[in-house]
């Protein structure tokens, strides 16, 4: 057991990825930032100083407290409070969790959909492949934000208001996810086409391994690298898309504010001097997206798949 772990560790240590990782300060810095953000967001109940959604802990009289380092700041509210007396830091962390959940789920959804379609299309070929690729072409021309708005608009019409608030987050995941899958489909199809003609696949076919097994056991691991790169960049796009929709007021309901919702609410206080209410969520969002993009950029260069 121990030796196994050791080999795994040493395998990682010896790999080219690890080598280029420790050589790249941007990669290290951005991953450290991301690890911190992910940790704080997912364990927000333990990390955040307050629970901003517990009404009994709020004090309206402490609303609009500026950040702690400014003159009127209070030590317990590091980044100040919003118009309802909620601690900004806690609110941002809770909001970032919503943004991350939506972002990750949307990407996971489009990854599953895209890879499955791409893999099977590349493997089976024929008319099926043609239809799938035609679909990706059409889907690629429709900008994600428009797709998401349409899905949301239709959902609003079909689902009743009470249900809509509960369903909003799923609608959002679907809406963002549905516009990202063609990237995955294209890449996995291309990779599958290359892998399919290699000897080991032919050999497996000859000895009678089932198609599904070949696809998922043999080909899939080989296309994970490009998929990972696309997924990382896609995550940044999904998070931005979510915040944009929430900013436009068609995203998650304000009772569970995401970063975009916080910026939209804070926007009302832009001129009144309470800059921290919109500034911190915005900075946090940019930091998050920028770090993911930096990491994605580095991965693209390192894993170097032919991506355009």
């Amino acid at each position, binding site marked *: 057991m121990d030796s196994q772990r050791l080999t795994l560790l040493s395998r990682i240590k010896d790999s080219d990825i690890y080598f280029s990782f420790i050589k790249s300060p941007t990669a290290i810095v951005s991953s450290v930032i991301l690890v911190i953000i992910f940790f704080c967001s997912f364990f927000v109940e333990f990390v955040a100083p307050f629970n901003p959604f517990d009404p009994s802990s709020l004090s309206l009289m402490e609303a609009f407290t500026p950040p702690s380092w400014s003159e009127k700041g209070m030590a317990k509210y590091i980044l100040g409070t919003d118009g309802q007396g909620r601690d900004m830091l806690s609110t941002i962390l809770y909001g970032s969790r919503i943004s991350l959940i939506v972002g990750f789920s949307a990407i996971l959804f489009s990854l599953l959909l895209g890879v499955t379609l791409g893999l099977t299309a590349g493997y089976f070929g024929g008319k099926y492949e043609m239809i799938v690729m035609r679909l990706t072409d059409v889907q690629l021309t*429709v900008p994600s934000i428009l797709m998401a*708005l349409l899905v949301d608009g239709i959902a609003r019409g079909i689902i009743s208001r009470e249900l809509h608030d509960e369903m909003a987050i799923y609608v959002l995941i679907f809406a963002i996810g549905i516009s990202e899958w063609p990237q995955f489909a294209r890449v996995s199809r291309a990779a599958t086409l290359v892998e399919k003609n290699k000897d080991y696949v032919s050999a497996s076919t000859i000895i009678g391994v089932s198609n599904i097994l070949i696809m998922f056991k043999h080909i899939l691991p080989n296309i994970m690298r490009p998929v990972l790169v696309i997924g990382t960049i896609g995550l*940044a796009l999904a998070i931005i898309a979510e915040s944009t929709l929430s900013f*436009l007021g068609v995203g998650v309901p304000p009772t569970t504010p995401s970063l975009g919702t916080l*910026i939209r609410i804070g*926007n009302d206080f832009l001129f009144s001097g309470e800059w921290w209410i919109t500034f911190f969520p915005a900075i946090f969002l940019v930091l998050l997206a*920028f770090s993911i993009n*930096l990491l994605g950029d580095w991965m693209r260069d390192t894993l170097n798949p032919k991506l355009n």
Partner: protein
Amino acid sequence: MVMIVVAFVSFSLFNFVGDPINNMVGEETSDEERDQIREDLGLNDAVHVQFLRFTGNALKGNFGISYQLRRPVSELIAERLPATLELVIISAIIALVSGTLLGVYTGINRKGFLSDVILAISLLGVSLPTFVIGILFIYLFAVILGVLPSFGRGEVVDLGFWSTGFLTLSGLKAIILPSVTLSLFQMTYIIRLVRAEMMEILQTDYIKFARARGINEKSIHYKHALKNGLIPVITIAGINIGTLIAFSIITETVFQWPGMGFLFIQAVKFVDIPIMSAYLVFIAFVFVMINFIVDILYYFIDPRIRVKSEAVSG
């Protein structure tokens, strides 16, 4: 073909999403009055009759009346089309020109300090949501510096079929912030695309040959390399316009630009189905046209593709 599908989707949207009557009438309207309106709108006819009527009307540019504004949708769209198109065209020009220039520069000077800065900023540009940039611009240029207007189109000149903001000073000033905001995201993509393309081309044999022949660097970069590097930019320019139209929804909301995107986002919030379906048909039409034009352009510009596509279809 695509248009028929889109027409059907938007028709279903119109008919099956929510009850249009409920959206239109107030609480005092009696059931008899509701039935009368239903009859007047032809909502009691068979579905295929309704679809044919919808398609016929759509071809004539008639999409019904907005639930929210109580005006014909075609009129609303026609009124707002110039605003959106002017914004999108200016943004596309900004994005293409500056994107290509910066892309070429960074492609040639791979290791320069300025290149690194441009690339870092471009990555930041991808990470900055459009609405954040817009708010930032308004705050900086309109409120703090007070040099550029923060909303609307300024004075417009009505040319009868087209109202343009290009002919007045205030109209020209008003388009600066929204168009730059809208173009930034696209610009970063073009920078990266052109850069990658340039780098690849500079590695190719014919450039090496050109160097060996002693042709000067400038001429190699701009005459030989750029010409080939621009081919993908044409496709991108096509998709670019479509994306810009979609992203103008955000820019128009932030800057209160009286275009179609602004109309659309209000329609989504109000579940104003006629506007939504008309917008959908319009966007689909634009995309189909753009793809068509790009395909044709491609076919003429790049002989390789001509050969390839013939091989595929043959």
